[in-house]
């Protein structure tokens, strides 16, 4: 089991330069400490126009800053949006390769397609075809990394022959991932030989069949890249404290803060009925039933990592048994916790929880 940190870079109002800079600096300080402590990865989202929830419009810049402050930690795009109105696949190939070089080969390249009207509407994107454009992007980007000169003629992207520069350091190229929020996307990941980056805060037991099906299908993958990245990473929350009750209380406050921020956004499934957006995104896991106000007392997901060290060991063992390779923790929400509390939580986790897990182990399909 490997451990990483996941950054939305949520920001409290008012959106002053001072507040904004503090969010970025605190996150970089946490990431730097995580590198020293032996965490495996730092992931950063790409979001636009999501007030408070995520002021992470340039994940490549955040990851570059982290790269220059760290030595070992992997650097994950979590994710780069594969929608023509927002990015050309050329730019993603360039950015990822550039970061791979200046980080000495530490890039993990996550891909996705956005799930909010804020973003897709804001960029005037073609909402109905985001899955198709994503599929085309993930098939052409590896070629841009591995072929000296690349040309392509497709539906959502075409280019004449050019040498896309720089090329990444990692041979043959950085591992590729897919953000999984809607049920079924893990199969898209498996079929393409890509890692499943599970971004819904979901129950362990309910996820086990999804993990098993991913493993079954990825064994027969036709990879879009030069190799199969057979890994499951799950985003989760974490706050570790010697007092189990206190940690649980703080954890619930983090989730409540996150819910308030996420609740403001306009999800595609709320605003724009479409066959390719039938499920709610990350926010969906926080809304048991949007049409039933009295049915919100659903217990929280069973796998959240709030508690004292032994509590967390027990919870993470269950994720491990379920077949997860990596847990990626969100440790802050709109600066709700004091920075020192976050740093102390990371230190306690490293000292008391990490030793219970083999961080070099490879999960074998159940």
């Amino acid at each position, binding site marked *: 089991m490997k451990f990483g940190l996941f950054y939305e870079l949520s920001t409290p*109002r008012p959106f002053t330069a001072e507040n904004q800079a503090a969010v970025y600096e605190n996150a970089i300080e946490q990431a730097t400490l995580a590198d020293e402590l032996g965490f495996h990865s730092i992931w950063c989202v790409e979001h636009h126009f999501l007030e408070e929830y995520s002021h992470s419009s340039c994940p490549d810049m955040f990851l570059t800053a982290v790269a220059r402050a760290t030595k070992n930690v992997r650097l994950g795009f979590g994710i780069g949006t594969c929608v023509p109105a927002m990015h050309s696949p050329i730019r993603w190939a360039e950015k990822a390769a550039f970061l791979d070089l200046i980080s000495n080969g530490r890039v993990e390249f996550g891909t996705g397609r956005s799930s909010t009207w804020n973003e897709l509407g804001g960029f005037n994107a073609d909402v109905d075809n985001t899955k198709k454009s994503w599929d085309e992007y993930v098939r052409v980007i590896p070629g841009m990394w591995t072929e000296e000169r690349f040309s392509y003629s497709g539906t959502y992207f075409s280019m004449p022959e050019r040498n896309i520069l720089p090329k990444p350091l990692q041979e043959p190229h950085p591992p590729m991932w897919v953000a999984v929020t809607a049920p079924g996307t893990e199969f898209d990941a498996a079929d393409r030989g890509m890692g499943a980056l599970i971004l819904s805060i979901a129950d362990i037991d309910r996820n086990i069949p999804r993990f098993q099906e991913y493993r079954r299908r990825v064994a027969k993958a036709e990879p879009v890249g030069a190799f199969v990245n057979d890994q499951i990473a799950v985003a989760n929350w974490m706050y570790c404290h010697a007092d189990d009750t206190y940690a649980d209380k703080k954890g619930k406050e983090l989730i409540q803060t996150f*819910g308030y921020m996420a*609740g*403001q956004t306009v999800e595609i499934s*709320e*605003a724009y*009925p479409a066959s390719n957006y039938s499920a709610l995104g990350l926010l969906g896991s926080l*809304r048991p039933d949007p049409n039933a106000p009295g049915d919100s007392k659903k217990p929280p997901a069973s796998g959240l990592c709030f508690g004292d060290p032994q509590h967390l060991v027990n919870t993470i063992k269950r994720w491990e048994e379920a077949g997860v390779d990596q847990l990626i923790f969100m440790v802050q929400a*709109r600066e709700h916790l004091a920075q020192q509390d976050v740093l102390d939580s990371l230190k306690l986790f490293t000292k008391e929880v990490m030793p219970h897990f083999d961080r070099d182990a490879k999960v074998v399909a159940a």
Partner: protein
Amino acid sequence: MELLYGERGAHDFSGDPLCVSHGDDLILNDVSVIYSLYELPMAVARERLPASLHPSVPAVLGVTGWNAPDSTFGAFEFAYLGLACRTGIKPRHLIYGAFCNNPKAAEFLSNNYGFSVQHAEVAIREYYDRATLQIGDAQAPLLTHAITNMIPIVGAGAAVKYSPPLNVCTIEDQTVLAQFEAGYDFKKVMRGTPELSVFEGEQLGDPWAMPTTPVSGTQAVCDIQLLPVRFKVDLEIPAESGGARKISA
């Protein structure tokens, strides 16, 4: 910590008494529902929402119309306008204008759900290339709306997540928001581009709530199960602080 809420004072709201019914659910079969969303300026939305509600980001205005071919009140057509908001994290629309062409249906919707319904001509029509909604008579319409370029939505996505309306009303001598609840069984869902050719804001209920960017328009056919009002929302206390409560029987 500065948070994003509505800014309108509770004293600016008033509503008629609500009859809290616990009778049988009312089922409307084969209702044609038009539901279109438009963006509008955030400042306008915040000025109209009470302090207990969060606006959606971006701010959104919804136009909804029902053509019910049969009911205990006979056939009726009903339309309402609302501003997207959140009670806690749940999507809702704060209703500010409602219109119906059947007095008995209007009385039912007003007494049982708190819609402040004005009697008006309402016409929802389907054509081979569009669906339309008109409020007011043909010579001087208040609203003329069409959904064009429609395509069928199929598979697991063949549903529309209608944000439940909140209506200002009086319950136990207190001005509150009553939440309309219904179940929808979809038989057909079409989605297209919404277009407004007439929008008389003042006569529709608010001169400043003017739509800007179209988001989406849908025309669906569904059976609607109208449930009794179960929840009320305070005008000043947010749901996350206990402001959304069950109505006592």
